[in-house]
């Protein structure tokens, strides 16, 4: 990446489908490694729920999905035009 501003029309590194896929797979692999590592150390759970296998993975995933969908639902309720307050 250079300091020069890229030319128009030339897609950046992150805009190529191939690269994005690369990132995505790296991420998945990293996730898999993390999940595997769970079984390699001694657990000191404070709460019972932590004893559920892959609790953090599931919780993180579901929490995220829940937040996004809840947000979508919320939009129906509270979203207004951009100039909502500027109108008189």
């Amino acid at each position, binding site marked *: 990446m250079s300091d020069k501003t890229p030319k128009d029309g030339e897609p950046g590194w992150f805009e190529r489908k191939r690269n994005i896929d690369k990132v995505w797979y790296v991420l998945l692999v990293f996730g898999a490694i993390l999940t595997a590592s769970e079984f390699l150390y001694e657990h000191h759970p404070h709460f019972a729920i932590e004893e559920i296998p892959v609790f953090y*993975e599931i919780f993180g995933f579901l929490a995220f999905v829940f937040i996004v969908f809840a947000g979508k639902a919320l939009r129906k309720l509270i979203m207004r035009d*951009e100039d909502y307050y500027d109108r008189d």
Partner: protein
Amino acid sequence: MTAIDVNPGLLMIAAGLLACLLPRVGRQLLTLGTPVAGLLLLIATPMGALTTLPIFGYDLTLLRLDGLAFPFGIIFLIAAFLNAIFALHQDDRLQDSAVMIYGGAAVGAVLAGDLASLFIYWELTAVSSVFLILASRTERAYSAAMRYLVWQIGSGVLLLAGILLHYQETGSMAFTTITLGSVGSWAIFLAFGIKCAFPLLHNWVQDAYPEATITGTVALSAFTTKLAVYAFARSFAGEELLIPIGVVMTCFPVFFAVIENDLRRVLAFSLNNQLGFMLVGIGIGSEIAINGAVSHAFAHIIYKSLLFMSMGAVLYRTGTVKASELGGLYKSMPLTTIFCIIGALSIAGFPLTSGFVTKNLTLTGAEYAGYFWIWLLLIFASAGVMEHSGIKIPFFAFFSHDGGHRVKEAPVNMLIAMGIAAGACIFIGIFPQTLYSILPYEVTKSPYSVQSVVTKTQLLTFSIIAFGVLIRAGLYPKEIPSTNLNTDWLYRHVGRYFVGVLAYMARWAWAGVCGGWRATLGAAHGLIRRHYGPDGAMGSAWPTGQMAFWATVMIAAYSLIGFWYLL
């Protein structure tokens, strides 16, 4: 009072006042130099230092340094310094001055030992900071500034009322632990709460911060709310009510952040959520939890400044921070992108960043105290932080689809400021002991246990994977130019009609009062004129006969009355 016992806040304020008289270079020297001088002064001040000034029957404690005040003082001065660097590109007398006074007031409040001084600084932060919003010089900013000011000054006068009630009750002006119970203590609690953006009292943050200037928002994000956190830590540590409040604060902004289009407003929601973590820590009140809150505030100021700086840089270059208009900036502003990602990772709490080492303390505090649901919700909120600050900010600003902005990298001074902040985030992440050493209580445990590193990484990584899944499936909500309603709807929309109706009624009543008054006077005037005017019975010249008649009447009346009395 020896030189060493000066409250560095006063130094900043004085410099701020001086700054508005100086030319640009002098001002810049001052904005950069004074925080450094303040830091040196603060570090040189021995712990336990106390300066009191008797005035109008009270002892004002101008300087009181202890373990709690010290880290806040340090970080406020650092924030002021960072902000000074970040603002070097601009030549704005007013903002330079206001930021210094604002920061100085925050430092002053932290180091003040009595409630009267606290009140003074409290109001000073409100008044000085409003200029950072006004300085945008737009109608929107002006309106937001007025709303902001009403909230802030409302907090101030409520604080004043609370202080006086508290004083009457306890006879003490000391700024120290207050037990919730009396009216006064509740007023103080609420006053702090407004400034700390309690749920339902929070909206001024999201309302005003995004309207402030590029540099102004950075300063705003650092001082006001964290001053409130300090005040809570000082006065209401261990107050259990703060725990549910804090938890609600961590959770509910994340939903709003998801759908918010203005990225600075997203950060403002995120600010709210972070404050929740701190309040939970304070509410738990154990040594570790307090440490967690304080350290979290410390780290938070840095990475939140960093994030606001990066968004500021984007705004500076592209003229917008709307997610729907941005994207692909990593090509034009690579360094900014990197710094922003570091900030995002920090706020999300990845290992090796400052967020990890500080949030960990709070979570540990919750774990130790056995608050399961609290803990669970905090974990949930952490995933939420990952969503809006960790992913949304960098993704939509710098990646996503290309917004078509072909701009230059941020100015050098901004890059330096961001670089320092990013460095600090990582430095604290790697060497947490440096931060731990200045916390109020001793920290014995390293945050880097295998378990905590692994579990937190799992949580965050799978959040990112969820993001990937959603976005590849096309389920992630699009960024839409929009206004999302919030509690400010109550006073900006409903309130407007309400005020409209009220004003109409007031006008009507007023006109009624004035008109009624006038009509009464007019009627009285007419009546009097009819009888006493030149043509009235009393006012006209009587003919002689009428005069004689009256003379007779009088004789008759006198006689009758006289005789009657005699009988």
